[in-house]
């Protein structure tokens, strides 16, 4: 318990101190890190706890960005962000019923396809509306965005920790092990999967809205970029997703890596990403968190 909380607390303290450096470069990096942590923690609520691996979380991120872009100027910023999370959650509930009927590789492909489908629907919609990208004037400054991202990362981390210890979390782990057996002990399997799917969508929706404010424009190809989905999964694999520490480590590792490489050797970045993914899947399936826990062995 103490051990598993030490790292989140350390990250939290670092995040609280960061703004006092006054360096907009560091705060910018911190913003990206907090967004990643919030995304990966949310993803684990569905994909690590139930075994339904989503390769389509970009859809929630993109929808959140779209909601904030559409409501920009019409609604106060906090309301727009809450709406972004709400729309992502409701969308998950609506598509969850059919989508969560399939398992394994079918679910992975289905979520990926769904995200692409929504992306192109938004592109068509936007061209019908005669707008190819939406500029957002008067976005809040970086300090404010950082504070919101930090809060989201904290909420997502605390949420992931609490859910794991709750009855909901035990039910989810049971259905990951064996859905049929979970049903026979009285786990409301369909309902829990849907709840997990919706919970894992809300914060990514808000993060998407926040990211749109950071770039001050919305463009569907970028907001629904499948790289968002890939990055989330890669961070979870490299960090480990057996507990709440993994996403922190995975997100931090990739944020630092991209700062180091992206600036100097951008063409090498994707190569390194691919190599790391292969190495971790093959040799360190429990991820960085597994190494820290002293159990780098294969996941049973």
């Amino acid at each position, binding site marked *: 318990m103490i051990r598993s909380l030490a790292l989140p607390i350390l990250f939290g303290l670092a995040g609280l101190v960061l703004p006092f450096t006054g360096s907009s470069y560091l705060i910018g990096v911190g913003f990206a890190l907090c967004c990643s942590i919030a995304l990966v923690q949310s993803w684990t609520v569905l994909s690590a706890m139930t075994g339904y691996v989503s390769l389509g979380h970009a859809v929630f991120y993109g929808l959140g960005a779209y909601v904030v872009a559409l409501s920009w100027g019409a609604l106060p910023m906090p309301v727009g962000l809450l709406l972004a999370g709400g729309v992502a959650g409701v969308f998950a509930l609506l598509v969850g019923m059919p989508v969560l009927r399939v398992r394994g590789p079918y679910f992975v492909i289905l979520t990926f396809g769904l995200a692409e489908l929504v992306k192109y629907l938004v592109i068509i919609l936007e061209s019908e509306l005669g707008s190819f990208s939406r500029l957002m004037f008067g976005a809040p400054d970086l300090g404010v965005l950082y504070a919101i991202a930090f809060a989201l990362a904290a909420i997502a981390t605390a949420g992931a920790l609490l859910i794991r210890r709750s*009855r909901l979390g*035990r*039910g989810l*782990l*049971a259905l990951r*092990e*064996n859905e*049929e*057996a*979970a*049903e*026979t*002990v*009285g*786990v*409301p*399997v*369909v309902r829990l999967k849907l709840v997990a799917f919706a919970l894992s969508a809300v914060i990514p929706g808000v993060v998407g809205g926040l990211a749109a404010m950071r770039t001050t424009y919305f463009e569907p190809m970028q907001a629904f970029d499948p790289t968002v989905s890939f990055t989330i999964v890669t961070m979870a694999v490299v960090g480990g997703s057996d507990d709440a520490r993994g996403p922190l480590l995975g997100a931090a590792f990739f944020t630092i890596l991209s700062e180091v490489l992206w600036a100097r050797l951008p063409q090498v970045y994707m190569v390194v990403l691919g190599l790391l993914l292969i190495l971790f899947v093959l040799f360190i399936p429990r991820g960085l968190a597994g190494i820290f826990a002293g159990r780098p062995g294969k996941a*049973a």
Partner: protein
Amino acid sequence: MTDALLTLENVAAGYGQVRILRALSLSVAPGAVTALIGGNGAGKTTVMRTIAGAIGAQAGRLLFGGQDITAWPAHRRVDAGLVLVPEGRLVFPTMTVEENLRLGAIARRARGSARTRRDEIYDMFPRLRERRDQRAGTMSGGEQQMLAIGRGLMADPTMILLDEPTLGLAPVMANEIFAIVRDLRARGLTVLIAEQDVRQTLAVADHGHVVENGDVVLSGPGTSLAADERVREAYLGL
């Protein structure tokens, strides 16, 4: 049998387009052991899964304790005290024995007294207590079957469904399982057991139904079924 605990009336069920049960009717008396016997593919497991709500009934109705449960999802039936120990045991393999038992008590009706009941189950199955921290998937088939039954009992059932509990077990272990069935009955539970070991099953059963091609073709007290010409010929090889 108006005082039956469970009644199936003309139940149809199956998988997708494939109908296994067309119009099956049977009833289970409270506090007794009722057996479903029949060969492979006769539909015994489909009956069990339909009763537990793992698959829905396409026609007919199911009554449990006087309530119509036909449309109830599986977890609601568990909450009503109707618990399935599925075929092939289906323990949670990477979880420990203790964690498996704790999950057995996840249903609302079971939460209050989970700890006491776990201790009772450890008394019933001392081997599970010895192995409480062992991963369930690494145990022998017989031990996993005991765990599956123990996990089912954690839900505090009034009626427990045992689907092929001795499948793939050594004869000694199968004998132990039948001893457990007697013990459950002595504790006042209603038991419905689907088995291929017809001789031993009819020896413990108060009542039996012979299932063939998705229908009950013969019913009667366990002892008289065991003496029945057709049963002796078809299932006992006599």
